[in-house]
């Protein structure tokens, strides 16, 4: 198709329009419980226009909820990176380590966050009030770490022999080889892993909050479902999507900077 001026604006607008039209149609015909876009907007207006307001523990502006979620995600995500990156390096560097741990990793990797969360809460039962937070952190870290682990391992294995030969000829110490050669050579792969991990961390947070009932975007969604305020479910879904999209964009900007290296 020929490109025309403003196609970057018009075509996405058409896409949104089509989905909104389908939404109107659905709520009018086969999904009577689904609030239509107008109703959704009216019911959500307060939350969107006063995004930081706090009216009660579970009745706050949408960005305030988002902020709570982001804080928790950041903690869990950092934990995932701190655990995942070294693990990836060990896997990439040592065949024995790979043979020992790869099977168990392949088994743990596909386990859903919904399955990890109860275990997380049980693990930190002794922590009393913060058990749910620690359980959620555990779940995020365990689920989000795998892309970092695997990409780092692949990156380390892909370090060209030439670079390692340079390190050998210069007699770089182990630590120096790691910092001056292995890590810089692996960075592009690591950042791809970091970006994928962040996406997963954001997926997990919603599930974690729903199950623990913590204030946050996922907790709010679950509460409003129980309170039968279906408009707010849609509001939450849109917010989660937009935030996830923005996070991914930010990470790919960072990733791009390291790609050229």
């Amino acid at each position, binding site marked *: 198709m020929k490109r025309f001026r403003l196609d970057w604006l018009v075509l996405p607008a058409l896409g949104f329009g089509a989905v909104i039209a389908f939404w109107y149609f659905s709520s009018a015909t086969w999904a009577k419980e689904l609030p239509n876009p107008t109703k959704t907007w009216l019911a959500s207006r307060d939350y969107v226009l006063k995004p930081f307001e706090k009216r009660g523990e579970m009745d706050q502006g949408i960005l305030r909820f988002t902020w709570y979620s982001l804080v928790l995600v950041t903690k869990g995500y950092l934990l995932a990176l701190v655990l995942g990156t070294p693990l990836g390096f060990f896997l990439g560097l040592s065949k024995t380590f790979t043979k020992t741990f790869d099977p168990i990793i392949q088994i743990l990797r596909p386990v859903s966050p919904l399955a990890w969360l109860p275990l997380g809460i049980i693990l930190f039962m002794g922590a009393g009030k913060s058990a749910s937070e620690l359980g959620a952190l555990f779940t995020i870290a365990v689920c989000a770490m795998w892309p970092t682990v695997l990409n780092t391992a692949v990156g380390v294995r892909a370090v060209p022999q*030439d*670079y390692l*030969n*340079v390190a*050998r*000829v*210069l*007699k*770089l110490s182990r630590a*120096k080889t790691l910092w*001056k*050669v292995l890590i*810089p*050579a692996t*960075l592009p792969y690591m950042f791809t892993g970091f970006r994928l991990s962040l996406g997963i961390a954001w997926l997990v947070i919603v599930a974690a909050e729903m199950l623990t009932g913590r204030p946050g975007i996922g907790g709010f969604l679950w509460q409003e479902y129980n309170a039968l305020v279906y408009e707010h479910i849609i509001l939450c879904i849109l917010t989660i999507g937009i935030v996830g999209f923005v996070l991914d964009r930010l990470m790919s900007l960072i990733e791009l900077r390291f790609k*050229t*290296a």
Partner: protein
Amino acid sequence: MPFLQLSDVSKGYGEGPGRTSVLRDISLTIEKGEFVAIVGYSGVGKTTLINLIAGLARPDSGTVTLNDLEITEPGPDRGIVFQNYSLLPWLNVAENIRLAVDQVFPNWAEAKKSRHVDHYIAMVNLTPARDKKPAELSGGMRQRVSVARALAMDPQILLLDEPLSALDALTRATLQDEIGRIWQENRKTVVLITNDPDEGIYLADRIIPLSAGPNATLGPSLTVDIPRPRDRRALNHDPRFKDLRRQIFAYMLESRAAQRVAVSRKLVLPDLEPEDLDRPRPNAGRVGPIRRGEWKRETVEVQ
């Protein structure tokens, strides 16, 4: 006393029947300050030879010694210019060289180190490109960075693995002159690997051809007794140059002709079961084939 010595070195890759022998009976003695060129066909094992001297690979048999000490691992006393330059792409020109300088002269003061780095960057005429990343440099420039890095380590011996083979003829000539000039200034021991006999004769004190592979060995060592500085244009008409050239080509072509490549392979002869279409064959209790299949070995000599 010989400076660098290889005695009866052989090297192959792989295990068992799939093993290929690359180099055999390599004996070579190089004196301090000598410039030796080794020429050979592509894929014959030139990089393998350099790796043996550098200590990046160990010989299967025989020994490699430098100053009577056996070479067992790589080290900065043997500066190597890799065939593909092997610059670290995330470091700029100065940083690539600096990494080597930091490693070899850890006790130098900061100012002395950076003066040292700048000196070698200037030596290869790259001062304007000092802060550029390897990706922003041309092939010839990268090659010069690689030479500067090797020289900045102040090695006892400089190993050049086809440093110019990726370049066009004109750049190649310029860089040959540059290598010649740098050698005149430093008088380091140099081993130059090349696939171009002219380049070897132009630069070296001695030139040694490698026989054709597989399983190559060194041919006769030919002394280049053409006085320096050598003039590239006059060289083409120099009878000594022509004679050396002829000898090298003759040796290399002969060694190729002498190589009878024996291809040996397994042949599978199938079971032989002629079928009488009129007679129904019993399905159960199958009759054996008329002739059993068998494995045969066949060896073909390619001239």
